[in-house]
C-alpha cells in the first residue's frame, strides 16, 4: 500500500478493508502490501510485542524457475473467513490488535502475498497467534494462486497442509 494522501488501508480503490472489531483489520487487495502500515495498524502504547508473518513469492518450485504468481480470490468470502480467524484468535489468546492483508493479482518474486501482524502486551500471545492465523488462513480462506514459470507454463497450486 503506497504511502501518501488517501492511501490508508481503507482507501485502496481496488481493495476492501473491513474491521472485524475496532481492533482488527482484514483486507484483500490488488495493491502491493506494506509491512510498515500493517505494523502501524496494530501498534499502540499497551503493546509490548508485535509479531508479523510475511508470505513471499519465491523464485523456484520443484526445480522450475517461477516468474510470478497470480492470485485470485473470492473476496467477500475471503474477508469473512479472515474475520473469523481474528475472532478465533481472540478467543484463544489475549490480543491487542490483528491486521491481515492478502494480495490478489500478479505478485512478483520477493513480493509479499500475505502479511499478518498481531500485537499483544507480552510476547507469547502475539507469537502464537500469528502462527495460528497463517495456518488457519492457508486452510480456510478462498484464495488461489497459479505459478507462471519461465517458458510461460502455468499451474494452479493447492496448499499441502
Amino acid at each position, binding site marked *: 500500500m503506497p504511502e501518501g494522501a488517501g492511501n490508508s488501508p481503507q482507501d485502496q480503490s481496488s481493495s476492501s478493508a473491513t474491521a472485524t472489531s475496532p481492533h482488527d483489520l482484514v483486507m484483500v487487495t490488488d495493491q502491493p502490501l506494506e509491512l510498515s502500515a500493517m505494523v502501524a495498524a496494530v501498534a499502540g502504547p499497551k503493546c509490548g510485542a508485535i509479531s508479523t508473518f510475511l508470505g513471499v513469492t519465491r523464485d523456484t518450485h520443484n526445480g522450475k524457475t517461477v516468474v510470478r504468481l497470480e492470485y*485470485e480470490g*473470492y473476496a467477500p468470502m475471503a474477508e469473512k473467513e479472515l474475520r473469523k480467524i481474528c475472532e478465533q484468535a481472540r478467543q484463544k489468546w489475549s490480543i491487542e490488535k490483528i491486521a491481515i492483508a492478502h494480495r490478489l493479482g500478479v505478485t512478483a518474486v520477493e513480493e509479499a502475498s500475505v502479511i499478518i501482524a498481531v500485537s499483544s502486551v507480552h510476547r507469547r500471545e502475539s507469537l502464537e497467534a500469528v502462527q495460528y492465523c497463517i495456518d488457519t488462513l492457508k486452510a480456510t*480462506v*478462498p484464495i*488461489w494462486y497459479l505459478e507462471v514459470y519461465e517458458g510461460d507454463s502455468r499451474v494452479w497450486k493447492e*496448499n499441502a497442509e
Partner: protein
Amino acid sequence: MKVKVLFFASCRELAGTKEIAVTLEGAENSTEALRKKLVELLPALEPVAWGITLAVNHEYTDPGQNVQLKDGDEVALIPPISGG
C-alpha cells in the same frame, strides 16, 4: 428460482466463465440438483462438479451435504485453496 454460481481458479478455466445465473425448477432446490444442472449446462465441469467444495452465501458447506437453496442464493465452486 434463480441462483448465482461463481467459478474460481482452475474451475473458472474449466467453466470458461467467472459466473452464471442458473434457474432451478421446482424440486431442484438443492446443491445436489445444482451440481447435476451445472454438468448439463457446462459439460467441461463434469470431472469436478460432484466432489468440489461448495460455498453458499459465503459459508462453506460440507462435502456430501445436500444444502437447500433459495432464490437469490450465491453459490461458489471452491477448488482446493492455496492462499497464504
